Structure formats: structure tokens, C-alpha cells
């Protein structure tokens, strides 16, 4: 039901994948066409005058015209009317995108953090992006991480409830024509009804620091049966993980929901923070000149009060995990770090 669909005006946009995005595209096409017409009138007029009234002789006179009330009224009033149409239409589409107060059939809590997204479903399933050092293949020198996949069912209303653990981020899915900031200390919502199956990229559009451009995820829209199957499999995986040893649990936390791997490598390479390779039991030098041997107490302190001891040569960029991590999770992580010789 594309208004003007014979004009491939939105051919650069990703396929409209939600119920709302078609309306956005119609508005866009209207803007493009009316904008193009205005441009032709203005610039076309200008170009014609340049050629028609070119000064040919040095003493060529010009007409003496100071104003013309009718023309001036028309060219103020007509743009005004057009802009009011664009305003009202935009409002209408906006209201539909926002869906203030609408509850979703599927509700997911999304937490943004430098530089990853965590998706938590009501039934406890959790997807974290990114899970480790999976670099996007086939791009030389790429720093993009392979985004983790979040699954949602087609045709249902889905509400993401967004918040942020640290700075501002913004949840943007071009194919959905929708975007919402994730604000620390606040909850915002991003509601959509997918109509196309497939994989859609999530970007972060609010500048959030060094790896802002890596902060991606993929939303996979599938049909209801596949969605149910996926949920069952995830719950099974979770049960399996619970039986694992402390070091494995620690590894899962490190690469998963806590997102440590976004800043700390395991192979000695420098990302944002220091690598954890060979950390346990070795000496650390701090920015203030002091140093200490990394033991349980030091690691725990670094997780809870990261600014207490800042490793020399690194910015104090880490934020506290106080309140986000449980006592036994810290133990698991320490166990995991011990394995990194």
C-alpha cells in the first residue's frame, strides 16, 4: 500500500520490515516529491534568471521593483500550509511508532552498556551481544564484532524496554524505521510489529565512546513455531550451564551478560582495558605509582570499585558492577581468571 510506490524513492532504505515502517516510507516519499518540486521551483527559477538577465552591456539597467504584496503573501502562505501538512502527517506516524502505553505480546528488557546490548526475556532467557571475540569475517582490519542474534516472532507486537548501565546509547533498527535512546536511570520503550521474516541489524546511534560503532546486535524475525522452538532450546542451554563448574560459569559471565570481554582480552592483546592473560598472581602497576599482586581481594575490588586502583597506562573507563553482580558470581569469575595462564 505504498503511496506513489512507482517511484523507487525509498530504494536506498532497507526493506520496511514492520507494520509501522510502511507509513514512514509513505511520508518520506511525500517529502521527497514535495522537496524536489520546491527545489526545482527555487533553483530552476534562479538558474533561468541568471541566464535571462545576464548583464550584456556595462550600462544595462535593471527594473526597479521593491515588493509585491500578493507574491509575498503566496510564497509565505503556501509553504506554511505544506509544512503544516508535513507536521500533522509526521505527528500521526510518530504516534504510531511510539505506541505509548501499548503492552507487547513479547516483552524484552534491553540493557545497553559500553559496548554491548543485553536482552532479557520474561521467562529468563538472556541474549548478550557480543559474546566474545568474534570478529566480522571477510573484512580486512575490521573491528566489527559479529552481532549476537535475538529472536522474535513475526506478526506479534514486541516491546523492548530500554535502559542503560552507563552512558547514553540509542537503539536503532533501520529496517524498522525506529529508534529510541537508552538512558541511564530511565526506562524508555521501543515497540514494533514485525511483518517480514529475516535478520535485521541493530545499531547504536548515540555516541558512547571508543567502540560506539561496534555496538551491534541482530534481530531475527521468525514464525511462531520457530520462536517457541528457539525458546525451548535456550532454556535447555541455560539448564546445562547451571551444572557447569565455577570456572565455566565464570567464563559464561565474562563473555556474556557482564560484557567484560568488550574491554578485556584473554590473549594478551590490548582492547580498552588490560588483558586478563596471566593476571592472577602477577604484579600490577598502577597509575598512582603503587603496585600489588593480583589476588582475590584485588580482583573483587576492581569489579566493585574500578577507580580504586587504575592500571598504569589505561584510562579509568570502567564503571562499577556494584549491584549488578552477586557475591558467588565474583567467585566464579575469579576462578575463571585463575585458569588464564
Amino acid at each position, binding site marked *: 500500500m505504498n503511496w506513489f510506490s512507482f517511484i523507487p524513492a525509498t530504494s536506498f532504505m532497507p526493506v520496511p520490515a514492520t507494520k509501522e515502517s510502511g507509513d514512514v516510507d509513505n511520508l518520506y516519499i511525500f*517529502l521527497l516529491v514535495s522537496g524536489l518540486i520546491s527545489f526545482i521551483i527555487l533553483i530552476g527559477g534562479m538558474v533561468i*534568471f541568471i541566464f535571462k538577465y545576464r548583464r550584456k552591456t556595462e550600462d544595462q539597467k535593471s527594473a526597479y*521593483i521593491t515588493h509585491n504584496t500578493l507574491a509575498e503573501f503566496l510564497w509565505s502562505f503556501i509553504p506554511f500550509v505544506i509544512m503544516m501538512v508535513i507536521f500533522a502527517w509526521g505527528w500521526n506516524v*510518530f504516534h504510531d511508532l511510539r505506541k505509548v502505553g501499548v503492552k507487547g505480546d513479547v516483552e524484552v528488557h534491553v540493557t545497553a552498556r559500553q559496548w554491548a546490548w543485553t536482552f532479557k526475556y520474561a521467562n529468563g532467557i538472556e541474549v548478550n551481544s557480543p559474546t566474545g571475540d568474534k570478529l566480522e569475517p571477510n573484512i580486512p582490519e575490521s*573491528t566489527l564484532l559479529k552481532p549476537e542474534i535475538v529472536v522474535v516472532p513475526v506478526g506479534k507486537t514486541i516491546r523492548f524496554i530500554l535502559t542503560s548501565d552507563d552512558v547514553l546509547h540509542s537503539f536503532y533498527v*533501520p529496517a524498522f524505521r525506529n*529508534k529510541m535512546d537508552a538512558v541511564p536511570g530511565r526506562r524508555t520503550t521501543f515497540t514494533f510489529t514485525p511483518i517480514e521474516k529475516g535478520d535485521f541489524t541493530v545499531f547504536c546511534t548515540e555516541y558512547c565512546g571508543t567502540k560506539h560503532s561496534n555496538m551491534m546486535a541482530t534481530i531475527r524475525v521468525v514464525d511462531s513455531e520457530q520462536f517457541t522452538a528457539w525458546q525451548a532450546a535456550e532454556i535447555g542451554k541455560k539448564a546445562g550451564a547451571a551444572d557447569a563448574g565455577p570456572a565455566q560459569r565464570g567464563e559464561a559471565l565474562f563473555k556474556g551478560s557482564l560484557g567484560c570481554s568488550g574491554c578485556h582480552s584473554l590473549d594478551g592483546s590490548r582492547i580498552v582495558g588490560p588483558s586478563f592473560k596471566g593476571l592472577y598472581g602477577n604484579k600490577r602497576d598502577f597509575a598512582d605509582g603503587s603496585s600489588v599482586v593480583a589476588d582475590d581481594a584485588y580482583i573483587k575490588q576492581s569489579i566493585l570499585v574500578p577507580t580504586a586502583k587504575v592500571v598504569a597506562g589505561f584510562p579509568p573507563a570502567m564503571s562499577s558492577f556494584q549491584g549488578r553482580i552477586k557475591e558467588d558470581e565474583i567467585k566464579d569469575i575469579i576462578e575463571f581468571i585463575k585458569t588464564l595462564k
Partner: protein
Amino acid sequence: MAHDQHNYLNHQKGIWSWLTTLDHKRIGIMYFIAIMSFFFLGGVFALLVRAELFTPGKTLFSADVYNRMMTYHGAIMVFMVIVPGIPAIFGNFVLPIMIGAKDVAFPRLNLMSWYMLMIGAAITGSTLFMQNVDTGWTFYTPYSSIKTGMGVIPMVLGVFIIGFSSILTGLNFIVTTHKLRAPGMTMTRIPLMVWALYSTAILQVLATPVLAITLLLLIAEKTLGVGIFDPQLGGDPVLFQHFFWFYSHPAVYIMILPAMGVVSELVATFSRKTIFGYTAIAYSSLAIAGVSFLVWGHHMFVSGQSEFAGVLFSFITMLVGVPTAIKLFNWIATMYKGSIRLDSPMLFAIGFMFLFTIGGLTGVYLASTGIDIHFHDTYFVVAHFHYVMVGGTLMALMGALIYWFPKVTGKLYNDTIGRISWVFIFSGFNVTFFPQFILGNMGMPRRYYDYLPTFTELNQMSTFGSWLIGTGFLVGFFGVIFALLKGKEAGMNPFGGKTLEWTIPSPPPHENFDKTPVLTGGPYEYR
């Protein structure tokens, strides 16, 4: 012969006489030298940023270095080039002459404004060598207040001081326009350049203090841990955006109104025709200045503010579009039945109208909430504001430079060099920024160090365009040197202008007018 004449350039000699001068013309030249140096620096950063984006992934620098360069490019260009640009350079030089005054109202304050710009720039610039800043020019909290280094403090302190320079200049221009007009020069007989500078000055005086306070609050939070913006201390991170845009939206008109003033002068002179709808242009400047205070929320449609707030800001923003459109129609109507010469200043004026139309129309897209949700913080916005600000302000700046160059120096700027420079800048500009509209359509977010492979070709085109622009400005700069060394004598009025600056010798005498002019008619009486 200009050399034997007694003029403001040979009135006193020596570098010290320049550094302590109270002559608005000399201060204008000092601003020119300073701002052009900043422009060079900001331009180098721009070229580096574009070079990094030539390929996906790491091309030249790490993400950290990229983010810093992007920040310095933005901060230098906005706070040190485009905001002070035309008012400080050309406003200083021509405003008093255009209204028949001997100088600005407060010459000492004028010199002090220049020193404040220099001190602010030095403090901001010093962070380049100590603690680089990577926040982007908008300094959004809580990133700037809790997540990045202490360099933010000297950076915003410098911007704070630069803001004072801007306030003082504005104050000076308001009083000058009100108090020092020559006999017979009523408010409806002042040139449109003066109207534009006057409207700008109002914005500078009223809006800049808000920025100043915001930056102080940011410093207070960063040093003392006062919980204003940081949610962990009970503050509100979005509050900063409200404060910031309450200044920075009017600021975009601080950047563009003077350019509109320049274009009004150029179109009238090179069409040799009375400006069409003088009052409409003059009052639309004031209207834009007034309404621009009420639209800041259109930068925050997705910040979590209420839907109602979004709709209200969208509505008011549409209202700004009307006076903007009126101006364009008036300039074009001025060319109707004119006697048009396409000298290089006029080419820049035409370039302005072309680019500004695209920038303004895409502004209407962004003002419409339904579509801004898609485009906000993508390359579409980057393209939009470069079209209006760079296409607008820098085109006008080049036009103004070539137009008033003979008045300032007594030498003509070589028209051929001006045209070559225009071709490079104008075409390079479109090659650089037009693809960015398409990137925005495709969904590429702004401030991106790395991007998906599908965005590659358009980014390469954009980078290529940046080299053309760079070349264009180098040619333009060469033109200045060439004109100073080899320029032809200009005479009093090489372009047939009608405003007062063309009635005095080039370069003007120390006190502008030997005999105070008396006006009997409007500024553009080509009959």
C-alpha cells in the same frame, strides 16, 4: 594611489600597533588571521577523519584517535570558525562603515573580545597536547562527565571563554547599531548585512550565557561530583541536552544569519538591483532569531522526552521554515529583471542558495517527527547540517572575502582564481555530502569509526569529495596571497555597490569618513 594615501593600514606601524589597536578594521583583520588558522586546523582534522573512513575497519588510526579527531574537527569548526566567522571578521570590518560610523561603540571591548577568543582557543587547543577529548562537540553527559578523561575540563573552559568573546561582540554590535548610525539612516535604511548582524547579536547576547552556565555545571560535576547530570548521583543526563540545545539551536542561526546578510548584499550588488522585499528580509531575520529559541527540543525527539513535547517542538520548528523560505524567494526575486554579473562573489552567493536550499528542505524532513525517528543521529543529519552550515556559512564567507577584499586591502582579488576555487569547493561539496544523505537512508549512524561493507562505496565518494573541497580552499587561499602581492589597484567601488563602504577610499582612512555622511534614501537604490 593607495600607497601615498593616509589610511588605516599605514596610520600606525609595527606589530605592537596591531596588537593594541582599537580600530575595528584592524581588529577585523586580526580576527581573519586567527580564524583562518583555526579553519586550517579544523580542515586538516576533517580530511583525516574522511581519510580514516575511506575503507571499513582500520584505515589509518585506531578508534580512539578517530574519536578525538572527530571531536576536534567539530569543536574547532563550530566554536572557533563558523560561530565567530562572519560577524567577527566582516561584521567588524564593515558594520561601522555601513552605518556611517567612525568605529564600534566600545572599541576597547572589541579588542578584548579578540583576546578572549585567543585565550579560549589556546586553552581548548592545549588539550590536544595534554589530554585529548573524545566526546564529540556536543559533550553529552554522562559520557563527558563520568566516562572520559579530565581533558574535558580545559576543553569546555576554553569554549566558555570563547562564548564570552561572542557575547561581548554581540553587545558591541547592538549598541553600535542603535547609537552610531549616521544622520538620516533610519532602521529601515540600514543595509541587510547590518540587519543580519544585529539579529545575530541578539542571539549571541541572549543564548550564549546558557551555554556558559551549562559548561560550568559540567565542570562542577566533573571536579566536585555535584549530581546534576549523572544519574548515579541523582542527576538527569537528559537535562544537559536541554541546556545544550537551548544554546546550540539558536547558535546554528548565529552561524547562518550573517551568511544570509552577506548573500543579500552580494545578490543586490551583482544584480545591480534594489533588493526585493527589504522589510520581509529584515524582519524575517528577527523572526528567525526569536523563534529559534523555542525549537531546541527537535534535537531530542528520541531522547525519551514525552511524545507531546516532541510534537510541540516539531510544530514550532516548522514555523522557522517559513521565514527561511521567504528569504530564498526574496533573493531570487531580486535577480528577476536584474542586470546580473557572475563575478566570483556572485558565484559563491549562488552556490550558497543552491546548497542552502537542499539543507533547508532536508531540515523540514528532520523537523517532521515521523521521519526524524529514522534519520536522527545518522549520516542524513550530518549531510543536512553540513549543507546548511558549511554550504551556507563557508560559501558566504568566501563570497564576502572576495567582495570586500578590495575595500580591505585596496587590491582586487583575481576573479579567475576565485572562480577556480568556487568550482572545486562547490563540486567537492556536493560529492562529499550528497552521498551522506543516502548513507543516512541506508541507516549508517553518525560518529562511526567503522562501518558495514555495504556503506563502503558511498564513503569513498565522500572522502574523494573532501579532497576537492580541500583543494578549493587552498586555491582560495593562494588567491589571497596572489592578490596581496600582485593584485590590481581596486579603486573606491569596483563592483558598483551602493552601501556606504563603497563611498570611501580603499583602503579606508583611519576614521572611515572624512565627513559624516547624511542619508536621504534606502541602501539599494539602483534606479
